[in-house]
C-alpha cells in the first residue's frame, strides 16, 4: 500500500463505520463487529502512515476544487499523522467498549450514537490530515455539526440546553473569529496550503500577525481555551461514549491539532511578529491549566470533573504552541498523545462504574476499587499520567514546557543581569511573562494532583461497599478489557517518548 492509498484508507475507515452503523443497524452483533473491525483499520492505517512520513512522503490528495484558488485536499505531515494515529488507535478500544457499554445500560439508540461518534472521528481525522486552511475549516465546522447529536443524545431539556451552548460557542467562534481569520489570510494574497515555512511568513505586519493569532486561537474554540470553554463543561450531560469522543477521540484533539498546525504551518517564523499576542495567550493558557484544575476540584460529578481536567490539559497544548520553539512544540505534540490516552482511560473506566455501580458522584466511589480492580487500576494509571508524575508520558510535556519557558526567559541574560541595567525593561517583562507561565504550569500539576490522586486512592484503599459483585470487576470482559488496554497503553507511552522525538526531529531541523 502506498502513502496515498493509506491516507485514503485512514479517511475512508471512519466514513465506512458511520455508513455501516446506519445501514446495518440490526442485528446488533453485526453492527458492533463491523464497527470494531473498521475502527481497528482506522487505528492501523495511520500507524503505517507514520513510516511514510518518516520517509518524507507528503502524498497530497485533492478531492475537489470548489473555487479556482481553493482545493479540498489532504496531505501528510507529522502533527496530523500523529493526531490521526492517536484518534484511530483509541477509536479501536473505544468502539469495543462502546458496544459493550451500550448493551450493559440497554442504550435505546445505539446505532445513532455509533454513527455520530464515527462521523466525529472522520471529521477529526480530516482536520488532522487537511492540507490547507480551507479544508481544515470545512472539516472543523463539519466536526462541530457532527458532534452536536452526541451532546443531545440523552434527550431532555438539559441536553438541549447543553447543545445550544455547544452550537453557539463553537459555531459562533468559528464564524465570528476563525472564518474572518482565514478570509483575511487569503486576502493577504496568501495561498492557503500549509507550508513548513509558514503561509504568513514575510506577508504580515506585526499588528496583523497579533490580531490574526488571536482570531485563530479563539476561533478554534474546540481547543477549549477560556473564555470559550463552557461548551465542554456543559456537554457533561452526554453519555460516556459520547464524552470519549468529545474529550479524547475527536473534538478537543482536533482543536488542539488545528491550533498546532496553524502556528506551525500558517504562522511559522511569523510567530515572532505575533509575540505580544503569543505571550498573552501563553499566560492565559498557563493560568487556565491552574484554574481549570482548581475548578475540577470543586466538581463532585465525575463527568464535570473530567471536563475541567480536559480543559486544563488542552490548555497545555495551547501553551506549547504559543511558546513557538522546538522543545515546546514537541511538548505540545506529546501532550496531545499523552492526555488523549489517559483521558480516554479515565472516561471509559468511569463509564464502567456508571454501568455496573450506577455511580457518577465522586463521594460514592470510595472503596469501589476493591470491587473493580481492573477499572480502578486504569483510573490510577490515567490519573498519574494526567497529573504529570514521572516516568509516565504525561510528565514530559509539562517538564519540557517549563524548560522551554525558562530557556526563553533567560535567553538574553540571567536574573543577575536584569538588575545591572544590561537588559532592557521590555525584555525583562517578556522574561517575567515566560517565567510566570512556567511557574503556573508547575502549579497546575499540584492542583491536578489534588483533584485526581485522592479520588483514585480512596477508591482503591477505602472501605469496600457492602455488596460486592461475584464477577471480577463487576463488568463484562468487553468493558473491562478496553479499560485495561488503554491503561496499559497509557503506561507504555513511556517507551514512545524518545522515538517520538526522533520522529519529529526532521521537522525541527528544517530551516
Amino acid at each position: 500500500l502506498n502513502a496515498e492509498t493509506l491516507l485514503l484508507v485512514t479517511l475512508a475507515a471512519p466514513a465506512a463505520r458511520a455508513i455501516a452503523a446506519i445501514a446495518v443497524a440490526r442485528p446488533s452483533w453485526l453492527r458492533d463487529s463491523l464497527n470494531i473491525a473498521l475502527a481497528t483499520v482506522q487505528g492501523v492505517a495511520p500507524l503505517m502512515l507514520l513510516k511514510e512520513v518518516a520517509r518524507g512522503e507528503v502524498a497530497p490528495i485533492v478531492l475537489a476544487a470548489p473555487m479556482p484558488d481553493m482545493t479540498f485536499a489532504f496531505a501528510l505531515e507529522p502533527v496530523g499523522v500523529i493526531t490521526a494515529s492517536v484518534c484511530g488507535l483509541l477509536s479501536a478500544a473505544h468502539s469495543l467498549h462502546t458496544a459493550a457499554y451500550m448493551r450493559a445500560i440497554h442504550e435505546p439508540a445505539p446505532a445513532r450514537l455509533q454513527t455520530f461518534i464515527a462521523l466525529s472521528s472522520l471529521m477529526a481525522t480530516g482536520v488532522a490530515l487537511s492540507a490547507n486552511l480551507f479544508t481544515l475549516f470545512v472539516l472543523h465546522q463539519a466536526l462541530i455539526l457532527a458532534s452536536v447529536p452526541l451532546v443531545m443524545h440523552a434527550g431532555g431539556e438539559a441536553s438541549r440546553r447543553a447543545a445550544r451552548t455547544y452550537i453557539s460557542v463553537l459555531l459562533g467562534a468559528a464564524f465570528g473569529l476563525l472564518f474572518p481569520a482565514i478570509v483575511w489570510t487569503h486576502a493577504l494574497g496568501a495561498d492557503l496550503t500549509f507550508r513548513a515555512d509558514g503561509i504568513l511568513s514575510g506577508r504580515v505586519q506585526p499588528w496583523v500577525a497579533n490580531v490574526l493569532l488571536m482570531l485563530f486561537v479563539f476561533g478554534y474554540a474546540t481547543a477549549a481555551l477560556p473564555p470559550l470553554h463552557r461548551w465542554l463543561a456543559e456537554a457533561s450531560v452526554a453519555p460516556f461514549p459520547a464524552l470519549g469522543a468529545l474529550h479524547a477521540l475527536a473534538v478537543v484533539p482536533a482543536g488542539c491539532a488545528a491550533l498546532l498546525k496553524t502556528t506551525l504551518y500558517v504562522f511559522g517564523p511569523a510567530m515572532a511578529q505575533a509575540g505580544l499576542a503569543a505571550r498573552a495567550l501563553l499566560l492565559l493558557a498557563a493560568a487556565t491549566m491552574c484554574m481549570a484544575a482548581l475548578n475540577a476540584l470543586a466538581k463532585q460529578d465525575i463527568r464535570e470533573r473530567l471536563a475541567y481536567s480536559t480543559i486544563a490539559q488542552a490548555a497545555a497544548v495551547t501553551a506549547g504552541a504559543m511558546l513557538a520553539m522546538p522543545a515546546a512544540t514537541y511538548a505540545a505534540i506529546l501532550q496531545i498523545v499523552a492526555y488523549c490516552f489517559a483521558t480516554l482511560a479515565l472516561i471509559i473506566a468511569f463509564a464502567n462504574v456508571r454501568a455496573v455501580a450506577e455511580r457518577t458522584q465522586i463521594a460514592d466511589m470510595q472503596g469501589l476499587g476493591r470491587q473493580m480492580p481492573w477499572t480502578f487500576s486504569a483510573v490510577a494509571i490515567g490519573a498519574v499520567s494526567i497529573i504529570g508524575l514521572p516516568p509516565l508520558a504525561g510528565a514530559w510535556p509539562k517538564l519540557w514546557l517549563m524548560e522551554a519557558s525558562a530557556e526563553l526567559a533567560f535567553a538574553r541574560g540571567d536574573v543577575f543581569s536584569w538588575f545591572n541595567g544590561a537588559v532592557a525593561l521590555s525584555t525583562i517583562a517578556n522574561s517575567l511573562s515566560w517565567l510566570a507561565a512556567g511557574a503556573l504550569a508547575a502549579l497546575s500539576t499540584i492542583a491536578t494532583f489534588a483533584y485526581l490522586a485522592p479520588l483514585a486512592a480512596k477508591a482503591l484503599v477505602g472501605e469496600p461497599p457492602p455488596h460486592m459483585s461475584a464477577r471480577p470487576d463487576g463488568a463484562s470482559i468487553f468493558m473491562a478489557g478496553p479499560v485495561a488496554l488503554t491503561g496499559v497503553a497509557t503506561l507504555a507511552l513511556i517507551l514512545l517518548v524518545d522515538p517520538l522525538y526522533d520522529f519529529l526531529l526532521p521537522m525541527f531541523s528544517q530551516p
Partner: protein
Amino acid sequence: VIAVSLEDLREASAAIMLVGPLVGALTAFALGSHRAVWSLACVLAFAVALASLQLATGGGFVSAPLGLQVDSISGAAAPIVGVAGAVCVFAAGWLAPSDSGRRTASVALALLQLAWFGWIGAAFSNDVFSLFAFLELGWLSACGLAALGLERDRAAAPAAFRQLVWCGAAGVAFACGAALVQHAAGSSDLAEIANARGARDRASAAGFALMIAALATWALAAPLHAWGGALFGRAARLASLAIASVGVAAALTGLARISLAAAISETSLSRGVSVGLAALGALSLAIGSLQAVGARDLRRLVCYAGAAQAGAIMIALALGEPAGHAAAFMNIASQTLIALGLLGGAAMLEGRAPLVVLDGFGRRAPVAGAAIAVAALGLIGAPLTLGFWSRWRLIEAALASGWWWAAAMSIGASLAAVFYAGRLLERLYARAEESTTPRTWRASLAPAHIVAIVAAIAFGFNAQPLWRAAGLAGELLAGIGR
C-alpha cells in the same frame, strides 16, 4: 459553425425564456381547467429552466425579443430567475388550488406566470423604462396572486393591499427617478447613462436615489420591507414563494444594473450612489438580522433573513468593484436557494407557521425538513453550502477594498444567523414530533425541495460555474468602463 450554432441557441434560449411564461399565462387565463393548464405550464417551465441554464454559459451580448438584450448580468441572473420560477410553477400544482380554491387555481397559475414573465423581462432590461415596466408588471401580478390567498386566510387581503401600497409607491418613485435620469443623461439606456459623463447634476442624483429606493423596496431591504412580513405570514404561500425566490432576485439584478451604471461614471454621483447603497445595505443587514433573531414565525423569519441578505448584497454592490459585483451575484443565487428551501419547506404547513410547528418536522417530512435544514445552514454560511462561498467572496471583496466595517457586519450577520437558523435546526431534529401529525409528502413541492438541497450543496462542493458567471457579470463593470 459551432460558434454560430451556439450563438443561435443562446438567442433562441432568450426568446424561450420570455415567450414560455407569457404563453403559459395566456393559456391559463383562456382555459379554466387547472390540471390541464398546469401540465402545459410545467412543460413550458421546464423548457424555460433549460434555456436559462443555456444562457448562463458564455458571455457577450445576445439580442432577445421585445428589444431586450442579454449581457453578462442577464446571463448570471437568467438561471436564478429561470430555475426558481420554474420550480414555483411546479409547486403551483398543489399550492394554487390549496391557497386559492379549485375555481381560481388557474387564475393563480396565470398570475404567477405573468409575474415570472415580468421578472425575467426585468432581468434582461438594460433600459430604465423597460426595467420599470417589467418590474411593475411582475409586482402587480404578484399582488393579485397574494390576494388570492383570501380563500385560506382572510388576513391575506390586507397583506396584499399593503403590498400594493408599498410596491405602488415604489413604482411611482422608480418612474420619477427614471424620468429624472433620462432628462439629465438624454437617454434611458443604462449603458449610455453610464457613459454620459458630462450630464451629472442634482436631477440625475435624485433620479438614481429614487430608483435605488424603489428597487430596495421590491428587494425587501429593511427598513423598506414593512409589507413583506405580513405578506409572507398571511398571504398565499405561492405568492410568498415566488416573490422571495424570483421577484427579489429580479429586483436585486435591477439594482446591480443601476449601481453598475453609477459606478462606471467614476464621478461624485458614483460616490454618492456607493455611500447610499452602503448605508441602506448596512441598515438592512442590521435590522433584518435583529428582526430574524426575534421572529417567531418561519415565513416572517424568511422575510427578515432576506432583508439581511439583501443588505449584504447592497453592500457588495456599493463596493463598485468587479469583485463586489461578482460577490453580489453569488449572494443573489444563495438567497434564492435559501428562500426556495425555507418557503418551499414551509409550504407543506397549512395555515400559519409559528416556529413551534417545526418540532420534529424533520422526521415527519424528511425531504422538506432537509430543504429547510440546508437553507438554514446556508443562512449561517456553513461550509459546503453556497451560502459559505457567497459570504466568503463578500468578505474578501470588502477586505480588498478596505471596508473593514462591511466585513465585520457580514460576520455579525453570520453570528446572528447561527442563533436564528440554529433554532430552526434544533426544532427540526432535536424536538419531539407531534405524534398526531401524519407524515407528509407533496410531489409538486418536491422540485423546490430538491433544487434547494442539491443546488446549495453542489455549489458548495463546486462553485466554479457560478463564480465564472458571477465573475463575467462583475467584469462588465471594468469592460464598459473602458
